[in-house]
């Protein structure tokens, strides 16, 4: 296909003009609805390695109930061959994945790591120390923003700043 023909096809398919700002809808996860951010959880184990004892007993034990309690998550159990590491790999809806190595961990420790992956949202770990309140996109405060020109005048008749 020639370059000009290709470009003309793309231009006809273009619904919105380029280089222009249009209002975009943004998702507000957790508002009125909730979709589990974890979509897939892969458990890599090996059949013979003593280092995967905890992982194997977890898979034989509480794992099935956990999988049944989370029907919206796809659980994949894979056997690794030849010196593979025991891994929990969680794939999230935002495209990121969290990987946790579970070598030499006991069954209860493996269960805790699975809980970490189930409770997380996939966002990159960042400091939340000064992140107490985040407002919705485009939200305004209900009480408005204080303005000295619109506030009551003081007793002297001057604006109180």
């Amino acid at each position: 296909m020639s370059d000009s023909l290709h470009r003309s096809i793309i231009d006809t398919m273009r619904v919105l003009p380029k280089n222009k700002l249009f209002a975009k809808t943004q998702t507000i996860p957790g508002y009125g609805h909730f979709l589990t951010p974890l979509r897939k959880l892969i458990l890599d184990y090996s059949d013979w390695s003593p280092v995967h004892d905890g992982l194997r007993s977890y898979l034989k034990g509480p794992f099935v109930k956990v999988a049944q309690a989370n029907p919206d998550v796809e659980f994949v159990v894979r056997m690794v061959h030849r010196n593979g590491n025991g891994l929990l790999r969680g794939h999230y809806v935002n495209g990121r994945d969290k990987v946790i190595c579970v070598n030499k961990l006991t069954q209860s420790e493996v269960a805790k790591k699975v809980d970490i992956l189930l409770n997380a949202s996939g966002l990159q770990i960042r400091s939340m120390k000064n992140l107490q309140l985040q407002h919705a996109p485009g939200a305004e405060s209900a009480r408005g923003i204080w303005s000295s020109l619109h506030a009551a005048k003081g007793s002297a008749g001057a604006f109180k700043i």
Partner: protein
Amino acid sequence: MSLRTSLRPALRAQLSRAFIHTSPALDPAPGPPLPDIAATSVTASPPSTIGESSVDAQASSCSSSASSSSTVSSATAAARKPRLTQFRADPKYAKLLSTPPKPIASLPSHLPPLISESSSPSPSSSSSSSSSSSSSSSSHTSSTALPKSIPSAISLLKSQSTPSTGIYVLARLHTRTYLLHPRDILTLPTLKPVKRPGTTLSLTRILEVGSRDYAIRSPSADAKVLRKYMDYDARSLETVPMSIAKVQVTVLEHTRGVMMTRFKYKRRGGFRKTIRRKPGWTRLRVGDIILGDGGQA
């Protein structure tokens, strides 16, 4: 000359074009048109004060320069037409000068209404109308009387807000008070017991619910009362009941934050240690604030 008192029509027009809100109540009634500058004796315009826009200052400086030039040489003033008379004579601007500009109602105003100088805003006063909690409303205009019943107070709030906009809540979680709007994300230290993401929790201790001009506030919202309150004694804190306002939060996630390292040492003793900790956080999405009917109280 302050922004609130007399504004000359031409300047008012300029200000309205610049999207500065001028309430018609504050503008003086359109009087007779200004006399010709060349004919009258000119007084210098006063220096610009706080509240005067830059446009106003420019115009006043222009007019003062025009006026000063005419006083200096009165003979040439009659020959030279000052800028203002040209402005007024132009038919293009005749409509602007004759009609006072209307306030721009279509633009969303994020500022509260201008308070007229005669009436001062009534401070929030508590008037107990029910045994369970005191309801009080604060209004900007002194003409609005305080509502006598809880349903009327709620209807005042509803007139200014919807469950998702224009409304806020002061909610207490453990030992902290948070000012929450719908759709906010609240990040807290790990909330125990740990509930799975997607769980909705109800905020039971609401101290205040309000909109832009009105609020229903319990006396517990004051720091004086909160200071005496111990969190394990749930009955003693007087809160806004669920019949008036309901808020739910959804658990988004439980995460761990960035590793924090703290180095402790004491000199000359060989005491050194590094403390590493990863704080746990729970993130909650605030839902709509739903006003009830007041429980027929």
